[in-house]
């Protein structure tokens, strides 16, 4: 256990990287070994991640499994990692989803093949994603954040759909654009802190940052731009439908299930705790954008005939709920956000898996061509219905808690925030849930029911295969478990998010005291 305590999270991050290196060194024509290596390294990382989760002291608000080593002394950047109740669910989600993706990849290496490169890139991607969730040093965080870009660029660009090149470059440029401003914000934080530091924990300490409010707002805007592109918040979302639609199935799953969360996590880990005052200035704006995203995402979904593109747009709406929760700056809101992130990861990841498998059979994402699926492949259709209903937020399934808690919390945001804005956002969000239900049910009606098209009548399609079950059952089970027993996540997060709110509210109290004096 000692190894896990000391190095557990580090291993969970770097085992996939080792796996990627090992795969890169295997000779041609050893696909079996490459797949085993990928499965072994992600599996080992998952096991270690679960051991960490069990060793984790739930209910303890502070950081655990901390490790701080010198890395680049010439610019004061350290290898400082650690997790708390906010990061733990996300890193476990990342480990689990990547592992299941590798399982799925056993039979589904997309065109044009090249198993070796495909698997190595996914493992590299996993290192970047996991690393982002444990980094406690701004430069280290930035490095992991950037590490995600290159593998995803190649995954979309090589193994993607017809319009893959456009989607890949759009994704790359958008994210880099955001991250440049994020980096400038990090550097500004460094130079404004006394003593100079990139350490997230120390930056939160009292008296380390003494910023004039104008500059603080500017820095927050820079950070928020970087994170908002990743989330993506409306109006920075335009890369997402293209990237999601064109990416290979596994790429879409990872993109939706894990990578989007890096943005929202960035808000909760960096922007809000380090700059609590500007967070309160920007919170109403974020709430408004989130409300727009919810309705806008739903309206776009209603307009889609392409199943995968519809799921992609649904992410915009779901991430809108997460951002609405974050914007309230309350423990309930933050809880809703973390829960929403995990639920969206599990549900939407599952939906993308299904879309991929359906495309494999029907060679199309177009809903009119899929019509009548309930008769042709009933089990697949059933799973699609299950996940769609989970995604629209039916009580008892995972999607419910994140949405309803986000709406509830925006009724009573942190004291001092503009109530009108948040309550309007709540109402708009509520309308959004209705629209969400609308487009998912309409999708089910068009896909699962309806009259089968001429083309599909001529073919026989295999229903869900054993390997697909292997990759999906854990996610399906989680959808149910999280819906019935939300405390699984809440028990872990509550203490940490409460502390986060205290940081924000505490700042306000101090400012008020100073004003009185």
């Amino acid at each position, binding site marked *: 256990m000692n190894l896990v305590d000391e190095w557990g999270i580090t291993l969970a991050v770097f085992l996939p990287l080792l796996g990627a290196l090992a795969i890169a060194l295997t000779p041609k024509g050893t696909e079996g070994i490459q797949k085993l290596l990928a499965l072994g390294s992600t599996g080992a990382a998952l096991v270690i991640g679960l051991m960490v989760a069990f060793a984790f002291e739930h209910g303890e608000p502070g950081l655990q499994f901390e490790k701080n080593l010198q890395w680049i002394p010439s610019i004061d950047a350290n290898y400082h990692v650690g997790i708390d109740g906010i990061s733990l669910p996300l890193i476990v989600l990342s480990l689990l989803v990547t592992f299941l993706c590798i399982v799925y990849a056993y039979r589904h290496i997309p065109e044009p093949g090249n198993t070796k490169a495909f698997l190595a890139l996914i493992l590299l991607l996993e290192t970047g994603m996991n690393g982002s969730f444990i980094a406690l040093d701004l430069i280290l965080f930035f490095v992991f954040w950037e590490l995600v870009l290159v593998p995803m660029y190649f995954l979309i660009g090589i193994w993607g759909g017809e319009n*893959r090149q456009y989607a890949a470059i759009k994704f790359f440029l958008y994210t880099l654009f955001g991250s440049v401003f994020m980096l*400038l914000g990090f550097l500004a934080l460094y130079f404004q802190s006394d003593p100079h530091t990139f350490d997230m924990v120390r930056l939160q300490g009292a008296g380390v940052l003494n910023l004039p409010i104008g500059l603080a707002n500017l820095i927050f805007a820079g950070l928020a731009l970087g994170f908002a592109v990743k989330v993506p918040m409306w109006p920075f979302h335009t890369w997402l439908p293209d990237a999601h639609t064109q990416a290979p199935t596994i790429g879409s799953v990872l993109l939706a299930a894990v990578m989007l969360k890096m943005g929202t996590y960035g808000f909760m880990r960096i922007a809000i705790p380090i700059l609590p005052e500007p967070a309160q200035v920007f919170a109403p704006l974020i709430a408004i954008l989130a409300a727009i995203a919810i309705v806008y995402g739903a309206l776009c979904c209603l307009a889609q005939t392409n199943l995968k593109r519809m799921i992609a747009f649904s992410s915009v709406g779901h991430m809108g709920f997460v951002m609405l929760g974050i914007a309230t700056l309350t423990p309930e809101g933050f809880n809703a956000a973390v829960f929403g992130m995990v639920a969206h990861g599990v549900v939407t990841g599952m939906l993308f898996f299904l879309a991929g498998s359906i495309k494999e059979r029907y060679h199309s994402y177009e809903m009119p061509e899929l019509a009548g699926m309930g008769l042709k492949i009933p089990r697949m259709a059933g799973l699609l219905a299950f996940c769609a209903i989970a995604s629209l937020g039916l009580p008892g399934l995972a999607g419910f808690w994140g949405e309803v808690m986000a709406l509830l919390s925006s009724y009573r945001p942190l004291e001092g925030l503009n109530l009108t804005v948040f309550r309007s956002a709540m109402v708009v969000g509520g309308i959004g849930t209705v629209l969400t239900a609308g487009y998912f049910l309409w999708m089910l009606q068009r896909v699962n029911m309806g009259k089968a098209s001429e083309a599909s009548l001529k073919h026989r399609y295999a229903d869900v295969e054993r390997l697909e079950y292997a990759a999906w059952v854990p996610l399906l089970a989680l959808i149910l478990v999280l819906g019935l027993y939300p405390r699984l996540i809440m028990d872990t997060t509550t203490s940490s998010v409460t502390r986060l709110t205290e940081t924000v509210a505490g700042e306000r109290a101090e400012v008020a005291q100073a004003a009185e004096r």
Partner: protein
Amino acid sequence: MDVNLTALLPEIILAVVACGVMTIDLFLPKERRGAAFMFSVVGVLATLVAVLNLYGQNITTLGGMFVVDRFAVIFKIVFCVAALLVFAVSHAYLKEDGEIPHGEYFTMMMFALLGMLTIASSRDLIAIFVSIEMISIPSFVLAGIRKHDIRSNEAALKFFLFGVLSTALMLFGMSLFYGIAGATNLADISENLAGRTDIEEVSLLAILFLIVGFGFKVSAFPFQWWVPDTYEGAPIPVAAFLSVASKTAGFVGLFQVMFLALGSLAGTWRPMFGIIGVVTMTFGNLVALQQKQIVRLLAYSSIAQAGYMLVPLGVASATNTELNTTIVFAVVAYLLVYAFMETGAFASATAFSRRGGGYMVDDYAGMFARSPVLALAMSAFLLSLAGIFPFAGWWAKLVVFQALIEGGGLWLAIAMGINTVVALFFYSAVVKRMFFDRSEVTTAVTLPPVLAGAIGIAALVVVVGGVLPDLFGRLAQNSHFF
């Protein structure tokens, strides 16, 4: 005058070897002329050993004109290593070309290298000028060494005309400073200028002339017009040599003059560098977007890279030595990283231009399927130039950003940030060609072992330096420029 031969040993060795190679080449039978490569490599290695031997020493000789300190030694190492890499690339290139005379080629490179070694140690306007000429004149010859090719002739002529004009203007600027300060030694100039308030106009003029000269060397806008044509016409290894070693030498000279002699006038030259830097990177990146030919693309990218290294001077301070130290650290670190990623990119371009490859970006289609290792290496260099982790370029950009923010140059930083995004577009376009496009040709591009070795070393440094940037960081920090 005192003469310390230990301090001068690397230069002496190199000069002797260069003359020796030129002489021996005369007496070798035609089919054994390739021996010049071996002699030159051994000569530069011996020079490198002599340089390493001087690390950590502080020697001032030739009446204060010539100084050996950490800063000088670090750059001498960079020049020697870059030259060795370029030699290795040249070896493959000359074999393929078959008509370039080996003896002259390597001799000229070594003479240019000699100028680079002396510029790193120069602490005197005259020494700096002589060093720059020492670098320039062999470079003119090298650019035109493919005598049978009209583009090479054009390259040399353009380079020569621009070069002569700009060095003449620089000399004029130097003479003005001699008139103002009454000295050519940098430290003396600095001392004599301190506190003077009656020299604003004339020093502004003189600084402008100096900027013309150095701007030409480092290919800053608007003195960069020769770059694309010269790089395209010259042999590719020569283009690498110009864009790495010669440019670095320009920066070294620029630092010495600006910080050691004219530090007190920072208020005058600071805004010029800020503007030139931003315009240079913007111009380089925007034009690079349009390029179809790989060497021209690299040429414009190298212009843009010069812009990234110039902007930090735009926040320099006349009084704040700590800030200036950060600026020098940032640019030195950038130059160290740049030497490897740029040489690597040119080396890979040389490899791709061999039989079976091509010069156009379109020829790179499907290269990942054809020559996967080479395609991976080229991508690493290009993405490093773009500043993407895990390649060393990310860190080089980071320290420049850091210097800009510390100096309060937020707008410069934002301009550079936007440029970084624009640049990614054309760097990734090449990567895209290699990985995403398919091609009819399926044969691999041949890669001779010496060239493969050079690419391998550069790639190794770029990747290891990306993950553990302190390798460069410690070196740059130890340079103790001030």
